[in-house]
């Protein structure tokens, strides 16, 4: 018998055994949420009081009733529901004030929808489309049109700060806008997913966890690479994925690299990720960067000279998030300090934004991150091996030590297994050149920088 059906029948019998207020008080919002193969049922109750009361006063009758309905039942266990309290619905949007009436401002960051986790600021309207992301954009639109069917899962990959989160959240917001509450959307960074799993395991609440994730129609998981190597999370995600996929629910994932390059990820997951549509977002070209800057300026209602915007677009090639940071600082200079923003000020700002965070990084950290990224050991980097899959990471490590830490060639050589300084020079030179000509290498290096940055 279905769990819901079984519980409904049990409740019908229980109801006649007690007074109406008692029944409502203790069994309101109760659910039968799980059944183990050994015949143990798990009932979730509204609060701790209900749990104590039902356990002490009604357990015997509940067990008897359930056994009479289904003779495979052996045991009943009670837990307190951790499903979020249903928020009361606001009475329409009628309260929206006219622009002429002053309005109490709220903290913008609190606008995140508690149920879907989506931030309303991410929409397609503010998403600039260019050659580097048009495929991803088109695939997203296709997903919205034909949820769970055409491109499932949709896997978006690309470097940090290029708009993966923006695109994914826009999909979620767009679906919510067209379908309202009939479609359940959930956006979640994979870090939160891992934390939820850890919490549930610790508190023996896996049933709740499963129910929450498996009841959605559109599941969006950001930065899926973080679950790689975390066995319990991969396992749970695998089952969630299958449960949703088999029921034609849409799954959207993002990562900093394509599935086949995430080699610590379990094979069965990798092959599932590859089964749908894989699209990449690469670095925006100059025109697109310029369009993005113009659009941001329009949003914030500020104007800066064209020569300055062009200069920023030219200088900031790698990361849109950093462009935003630079624009915010420029706004600050203009608005608050009342300074005319000149090219030299902007140059200064860009310098600070892009170089600031590598001050406290040590060479060992660089080696550690690089070896982790390529799934090698640090010893591989310093050893003499000349296999291609080691040589490139080794050269990248040298390049980063030079680029980020400004170490001398001979120091780097010493650090990297007593190599000659000319070897290091050659490595830095080579990677430096590849950076402009080879998109793959450029992607890798910016991902590595991102990791170092977050240390």
């Amino acid at each position, binding site marked *: 018998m279905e769990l819901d059906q079984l519980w409904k029948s049990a409740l019908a019998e229980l109801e006649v055994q007690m007074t109406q*207020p*008692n029944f*409502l*008080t203790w069994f309101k919002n109760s659910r039968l949420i799980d059944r183990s193969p050994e015949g143990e049922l798990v009932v979730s109750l509204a*609060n*701790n*009081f*209900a*749990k*104590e*009361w039902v356990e*002490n006063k009604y357990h015997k009758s509940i067990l008897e009733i359930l056994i009479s309905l289904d003779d495979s039942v052996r045991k009943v266990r009670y837990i*307190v529901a*951790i*499903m*979020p*309290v249903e*928020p*009361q619905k*606001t009475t329409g949007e009628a309260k929206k004030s006219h*622009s*002429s009436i*002053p*309005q*109490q*401002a*709220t*903290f*913008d*960051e*609190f606008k*995140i929808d*508690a149920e879907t986790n989506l931030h309303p600021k991410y929409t397609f309207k503010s998403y600039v489309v260019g050659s580097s992301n048009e495929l991803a954009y088109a695939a997203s639109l296709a997903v919205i049109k034909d949820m769970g069917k055409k491109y499932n899962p949709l896997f978006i990959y690309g470097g940090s700060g290029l708009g993966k989160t923006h695109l994914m959240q826009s999909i979620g917001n767009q679906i919510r806008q067209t379908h309202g509450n009939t479609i359940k959307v959930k956006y979640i960074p994979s870090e939160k997913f891992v934390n939820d799993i850890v919490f549930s395991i610790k*508190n023996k*609440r896996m049933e709740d966890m499963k129910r929450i994730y498996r009841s959605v129609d559109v599941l969006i998981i950001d930065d899926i690479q973080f679950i790689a190597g975390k066995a319990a999370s991969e396992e749970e995600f695998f089952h969630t994925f299958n449960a949703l996929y088999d029921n034609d629910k849409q799954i959207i994932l993002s990562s900093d690299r394509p599935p086949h390059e995430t080699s610590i990820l379990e094979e069965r997951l990798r092959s599932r990720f590859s089964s749908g549509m894989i699209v990449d977002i690469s670095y925006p070209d100059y025109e697109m960067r310029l369009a993005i800057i113009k659009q941001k300026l329009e949003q914030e209602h500020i104007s800066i000279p064209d020569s300055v915007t062009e200069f920023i677009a030219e200088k900031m090639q790698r990361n849109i998030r950093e462009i935003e940071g630079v624009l915010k600082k420029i706004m*600050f200079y203009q*608005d*608050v*300090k*009342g300074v005319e923003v000149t090219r030299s000020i902007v140059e200064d700002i860009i310098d600070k934004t892009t170089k600031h965070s590598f001050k406290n990084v040590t060479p060992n950290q660089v080696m550690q991150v690089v070896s982790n990224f390529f799934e090698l050991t640090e010893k591989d980097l310093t050893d003499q091996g000349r296999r291609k899959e080691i040589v490139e990471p080794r050269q990248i490590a040298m390049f980063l030590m030079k680029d980020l830490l400004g170490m001398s060639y001979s120091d780097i050589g010493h650090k990297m297994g007593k190599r000659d300084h000319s070897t290091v020079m050659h490595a830095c030179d080579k990677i430096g050149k590849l950076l402009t000509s080879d998109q793959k290498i450029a992607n890798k290096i910016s991902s590595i920088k991102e990791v170092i940055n977050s240390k």
Partner: protein
Amino acid sequence: MELIVLKTNLREGIASLGKIGSENASLPILKNCLIETHENKIKFSVTNLEMAIASVIPAKVIQDGSITVPLSVLSSIINNLESERVSLETKANNLIIKTENYQAKIQGTKKEEFPIIPKIENEKEYIEIESGLLKDSFLSIITASQGSAIRPELGGILFDYQVNFVKFAATDSFRLAEKTINENRYKANIEQKVKMIVPLKTIQELVRIMSEKDDEKIKIYFDQSQILFRTEKFELVSRVINGDFPDYQQIIPKETSIEVIVNRDQLVNALKLTGAFSDKMNEIRVIIKEGVKNIELFSSNPILGENQYLIPAKIKGDSMEIVFNWKFLFDGMKSITTENVTIGLNGDNKPAIIKPMNVTDYFYIIMPIKSE
């Protein structure tokens, strides 16, 4: 049950229970108060199934026992008794209250009908803190919460235990207050971090019961769905709110372009005065001019008139004007006790941060009223 108890103790014990029980009408027993004896002590308990409060008072117990009676009847009797010594006795399902010249018989219900108050499984790990300090800390932040039912996760107080400090925060999305207590001011034997949202109502009840005496200690216990506050005199157990408190770190201004230092009392006075003319949005305009040694508070009302107030101030930064809800600003001032306060501003549409001067454990952030 049979016992003799002093009236003053009895009053104190009953007063701690508050009125939480009487609110729920669906289950009549919730209007009752459970009376139990244990080792020359009487324990009174009430609950509304969201939280439970129990108070303990000393008594001379002749025979142990228990009963539940309607709290409203019990408290109106106890509050009006004159004699110092009161005897309580149960006969069948009745509670008999006796003094030299007075006797009452209240119809009661058996203890078995009363909800079982949930326990916290792990009583080994707790935080111990001075009652007065905890009370002041809660008082300093709860004005920023309105117990929202629309956003349950905003309807409570964040309790953020980070091992070497505890943070309390409250917000209604227009303003946010945060108080930090450092580890040298409490004792704890919990090694992992704990983050939970406690319903505003729970904290309000707690503040009401907690004594201001600094020597009284309060112990705080928790599991994943409940929090328990316990002293020698009372116990309060409450559910916690499911959900994540908003990540408010990002709204705290890291730097401010304008900094104003004013006398706290003068600002409070100015707010009360100028507030008299404000419109229904409670708007007052704060005018800051570079190089001038005071700030101006201005409010006007098309029907009533207008007024302005000058407060001497130290100003760092440029000129600007910003509009606030004066009541929100006033709420923030109430919990500051230092002579001077600093107000940090970043623009007329950006949050302002208010801090007591030279004190780092408290701040209050407030959003302005948007001027179109």
